[in-house]
Every structure is written in C-alpha cells, then in structure tokens.
C-alpha cells in the first residue's frame, strides 16, 4: 500500500506548478475567483483555453491517439489538483469533456478532422441538448423528432437546462429518429449548427441572478445527415458512454478543498460553530479526495473501479453546498449582497461591500443548490448507490 507520489510524479507536479505560476495571469485568477456559476465566463474561458492549447495541455484527458498528451490517470489528477489549488478557471466541459470523447470514439474520420481542431481552438463553442421539459433524468422519454429528408434531418423539439447555450454556436443533441421501435432504440446523436434557421435560444435566469441556463427551441431545423455521430439509432449507446465519462471523469475533492482554503483566507480565522462547520467540511472533502484516489488507483492498476465510484457526486454536492452557506454565514451582512450585474469581475458591477468574495457569496450559495439537482439529483444518486453498491 502506498499513497505517496513517485519521483517522476513529483517532478511532473512541479512542472505543472511552475507553468501555472506564470500562465495564470492576475486577470484569469481574478475572473476565476469571482465566478458565481459552475463554469468560467466566456472571456475568461477563451483566454485560458488558448493558453492551455498552446501548452499542449488543453485536452489532457484525451488519449494520445486523439491528440492528448498521453498522461496517466494520476497525472491528470495531479494536473487538476494543481489547477484547483492555483485557482485556475474551470473550463466549460460540454465540448472538451463530453463531446470530445464521443467524437474521437464514435466520429467518422471526416468528423474528427473537421470538428476536433475547431473544438480545441474554440472556434466551435458547444452546448449539450439532452434534457427536455418533463423528461427529468429519464432520457428514454425523449420527444425531439428528427425526420429524414434526403441528406438532411428535419429536427423539431424543445431542449431545456442548456448550460451556456447563449454563448454556444454548436449544439449536440439526442433526437428521436425512429418513433416506431422501443424508446431507447430510436434515438440518434446529432451535431447542430446553432446558426441554422429555426434554432432559438431563450434564457432561463437562475434564482441567483445568473444567466447560465437556457431553453433551445428547434423548429424545422435542417441538419445535414453528415452531422450525425455514429449510426442512426446508436444515440442511446453514445449517450450512455458520454454520461459514464462525465461521471467517472471528474475528481471533485481538489476543487472543494482549494475553495475551502481560499474562503478561510478571505474570512480570516473562523471561530466557534463556524470553525466547527469548516472543519467538518474539510474532513468530508479530505475523505472524498481519498475515495476518488482509490478509484483512480484501481483504474491505474488496470482494475475495474468498484461500486464506490458512484458515491462521489452526492458527497461533492453536499460539501459544495456546505461551503457556500458557510461563506454566507462567515461574511455576515456582507454575505447577503447581491448585485444584479454580471459577471462579478466586470467593471459594471457596483463596488463590493467588504470584499469581492463577499459580494459573490449569495449568488454562489444559490447556484450551489443546483449541484444536487442537475446531472442526476441526489435522490437519483442514492437510488443508484443502493442498487450498484448494495444490491437493493
């Protein structure tokens, strides 16, 4: 048993650290620190994406054959941990984390040649069109239709909870291409140019005041058949691959631990109940970090990850929510301010009371409530754990 890093791994960590020390400009750090939602805002994200791409580390989680740097799972983890500790922006994952692996796994040679470079260069900014009104976590009930018309599909439907769709120019979506077969079998996976006629984005403002979510209406949109990934009817398989990738791919703990440390740097030493809450959150996050590393070590050793890998999102959601309400409490009245203007680091935002971190606390708190709802509610997670880990 061994929990420490090898000399090579330590050298790699130092390399990452040195890179971050010079690459992360004050503006990028500032923007990342004052992000109220899950992902960095477009201006920050673009700049950081370009820097990582220039370094060759943007698609660090892709295999070498797909253009990644060929890192081991542990190297990826070290990179993520260093990024979190350095306060790097969190890039939107829809293109890089979700679509990318789908493209290099299921895409045709032509699709890969066209789409992968544009994804990396951020010429294409992707949104994810899976959820539909009323469908909740139940993808099989999908109602968006795509009817074949020569070399095109005519797509009609209504997607919801589409993160950052207002900044995106491309949408990947699940559509029903065959209503006659059983629900899972009739689904296909399309890439849709959002400039096409018939695509309309309607914002959904969050209770936090942020605009992260949208509805996307697809009204007789003509999508080339060439922009379907995989076979017709293979959409369900691809979606499962993507969702498993999403679930397994992320280590939550490093970011949570870093945020907890940063918060206490801003508030100064906490006392009494608040100190106890901070300590409990720290312990939970430290445990989560090892829980995540245990799965990683299994993957690194070529073993199948145990059922424990399904528990991390639930725990991470609760720690995230605990951190954000702690922040509100630690800042007192200052934690209750809530300017309507966004993003928080923008010149248009009123001068903060007390501190910029305090100014963003309430919005962060409100957005953190979404952690236990999107990407599988905590109730769904508990049901999955009961089945997968306990056979209940």
């Amino acid at each position, binding site marked *: 048993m061994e929990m420490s890093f090898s000399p090579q791994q330590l050298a790699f960590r130092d390399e990452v650290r040195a890179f971050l020390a010079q690459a992360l400009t004050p503006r990028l750090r500032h923007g990342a620190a004052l992000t109220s939602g899950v992902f960095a805002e477009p201006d920050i994200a673009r700049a950081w994406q370009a820097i990582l791409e220039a370094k060759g580390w943007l698609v660090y989680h892709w295999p070498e054959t797909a253009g990644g740097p060929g890192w081991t799972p542990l190297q990826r983890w070290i990179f993520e941990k260093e990024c979190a500790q350095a306060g790097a922006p969190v890039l939107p994952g829809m293109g890089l984390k979700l679509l990318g692996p789908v493209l290099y796994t299921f895409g045709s040679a032509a699709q890969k040649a066209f789409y992968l470079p544009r994804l990396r260069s951020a010429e294409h900014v992707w949104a994810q069109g899976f959820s539909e009104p009323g469908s909740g976590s139940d993808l099989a009930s999908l109602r968006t239709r795509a009817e074949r018309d020569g070399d095109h599909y005519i797509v009609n439907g209504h997607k919801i909870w589409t993160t950052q769709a207002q900044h995106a120019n491309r949408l990947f979506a699940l559509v029903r291409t065959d209503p006659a077969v059983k629900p899972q079998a009739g689904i296909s996976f399309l890439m849709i140019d959002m400039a096409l006629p018939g695509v309309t984005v309607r914002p959904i403002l969050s209770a936090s005041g942020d605009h992260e979510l949208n509805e996307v209406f697809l009204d007789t949109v003509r999508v080339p058949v060439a922009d379907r990934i995989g076979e017709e009817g293979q959409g369900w398989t691809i979606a499962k691959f993507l969702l498993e990738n999403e679930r397994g791919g992320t280590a939550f703990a490093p970011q949570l631990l870093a945020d907890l440390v940063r918060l206490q740097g801003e508030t100064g030493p906490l006392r009494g109940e608040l100190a106890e809450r901070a300590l409990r959150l720290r312990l939970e996050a430290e445990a989560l970090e090892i829980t995540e590393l245990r799965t990683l070590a299994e993957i690194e050793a070529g073993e199948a990850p145990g059922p424990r890998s399904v528990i991390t999102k639930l725990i991470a959601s609760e720690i995230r929510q605990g951190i954000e*309400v702690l922040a509100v409490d630690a800042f007192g009245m200052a934690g209750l301010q809530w300017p309507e203007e966004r993003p928080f680091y923008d010149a248009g935002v*009123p001068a903060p009371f007390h501190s910029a971190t305090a100014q963003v606390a309430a919005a962060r708190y409100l957005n953190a409530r979404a952690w236990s*709802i999107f990407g599988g509610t905590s*109730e769904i997670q508990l049901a999955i754990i009961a089945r997968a880990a306990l056979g209940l």
Partner: protein
Amino acid sequence: MRFAPNDDQAMVLDMVARFLAARTDPATMAAGPMPAQDWSALGELGLFGFLLPEAAGGMGGAPQDVMLVAEAFGRSLAITPLAEGVVICGHLLGAAASSSRGDQLLAGIAQGTLTLAFARGGMISDKGLTGHLGLVRDGMAAEAFLVAAEDGGVALLAADDPRLHRRPVRLVDGSLAADLRCDAAGAALLEVPEGQVAAALALGQLAIVAEMVGAMATLLDLTVDYVKQRRQFGQAIASFQVIQHRCARLYVMLEQARSMMLRAALAPEGERQASVAAARAYAGEAALRLAEEAVQFHGGMGVTDELAVGRGLRRVLLLSRLFGGPCAARAELAA
C-alpha cells in the same frame, strides 16, 4: 392558555391577508420590494397603527399583534420594511420622551408615507454622529435613520444631511440597502429609557421570525402542491416514500418553528429577549432548511427565478441571517 387570535386580531389578520393575497400572489408576483402605493394603502387601512403602541399614537403594538401581522407578510413573500421601518423604528420613537421625538414621524410611519430605516453603530458627539454603519436595510429609500449608536445613545438623522453618505447595495432578496457612512452628521438625540432599545430590537426580531414562519408555510404549501401534481416514472412524485418522509420533516420543522414564534410573542416581558433569541436560533435554521428542500423537490425549476420557491429561498436566506443569524442567536443564549 390560548394560542388562537382573538376577534380583533382575527379581523385585522383577515384584512391584511386579503390585501396581500390580492396584490402578492407568491406564485406569480414579480420579485422586488412592495410598491410604495401598496404600502401606503396598507397605512390607510390602519394596519401600521395596529403595530404601534398607544404611546406612539397606535392602537396595538403588542408582541402578538406584531407576530400575527408579520407572519401574514411572510406568507406573501412580500419584501417590505415592516420589521425595522415600522416595528423597531415605531417602537423606539414610541418609547422616546415625547419632548424629544417628532410626532409627525410616527404619523408618517402609521400612514405608510414615510420610510425610516434602523441602523446600529457610530459614535455621537457634539458635532453629530460619526462612523461607518455598514449595510442598512431599506437605507436608500429611507427619508430618515434611527441609529442606536455604540455609546448607547439613539439618534435621528435626516437622509438628506450632506454629511451622511450612502451608497446603494442590492441584497439577496432583491431589496435595496444602503452602505451608510456618517461624518459628523446632524443627529437629533432621542431620550429613550434604559432597556427600550433592546426591547424594540427584540420586537423587530420577533417580526422577522414571524416572517420566516409565514414564508415556511407558503413554501411548504407550494411544495406539497407541486409534488402532488408533478409526475415521474408514471406516478405523482408525492407517492414516493422518500418525498413523503421528507415533506413530513418539513411540516415538523414548520410547526416547531411556529411554536417557538408563539412562545417568543407570548412570553412574559422579562423572558421576551431570551425567547426571541431562541426563536431566531430555531426558526432561522428551520426556515433555510425548509426552503432548500422546497427548491430541491421542485427540481430544475426550483433554482430558476421563475417560481416562487426560488424567491422564497432568497428571502429566507436574508431573513434568517439578519442580526447575525442563528449562530449569533445561539451565542446570545449561551452567554
């Protein structure tokens, strides 16, 4: 031993509830503070007089009156200066020696035509009040400030004093606070008997507790309605055992918080401050947990600004954290 309102109270309550229901359906109302004309309409109906003691020209103002009206306001999720602008300021003015106070201020409060804000901090000297008083709720709309200074004095400040500086800061419930600084701002001193500042503060805090309890009731109602109607996997989610148990927990929290509120409102005067602190500690935690669960059960829609639950969470977050929130209340009880 009776926890139900008497006939007079029931009449007033009915009036308020009907007024608020007509103007503030929580399921549809827009976010943001209550419009001034609604506020003054409530004043014309005599509501604020019911919240003020006779000494302040009112006709009520007992803790239970304050509690009943504030709970009705809480139910509507309306954003108003009730707790501080009416209850604290009104009772402070009522407690002040009549020679030292402006009766026209009380009339303005009672009529709903004058907005006062309550602040704490600063030092009073010959030259006036000086200090950074921090975020003052409704401080931008206020025409005057009542300030409980650090040295124990109570001062009345005109908002248009050039040595009073305020800067707007939006709060999480959508209301507008002022970041208030005074640099020898002209301060009329009020002669307030010993203990009356703390008494007025406790009464205002009771109003905040009651607003939270009212908001809890509305959020629970909305949630129960929602889970009965929302279907998943072919059945109403209200039929899921987990939803039932967790909703039952919310009901328990609501009723327990209500008990703490009643206790604080009906406690003998000597126990009022402690029982208000206990109610703040209890209701502050219960209200936020209930609001969070209400949002959770509403799923994706719960975290948008399109439903009342999201607004309710914002309002409850603010109310529960005022005056230092549950932590400060527990610290007060432990001291």
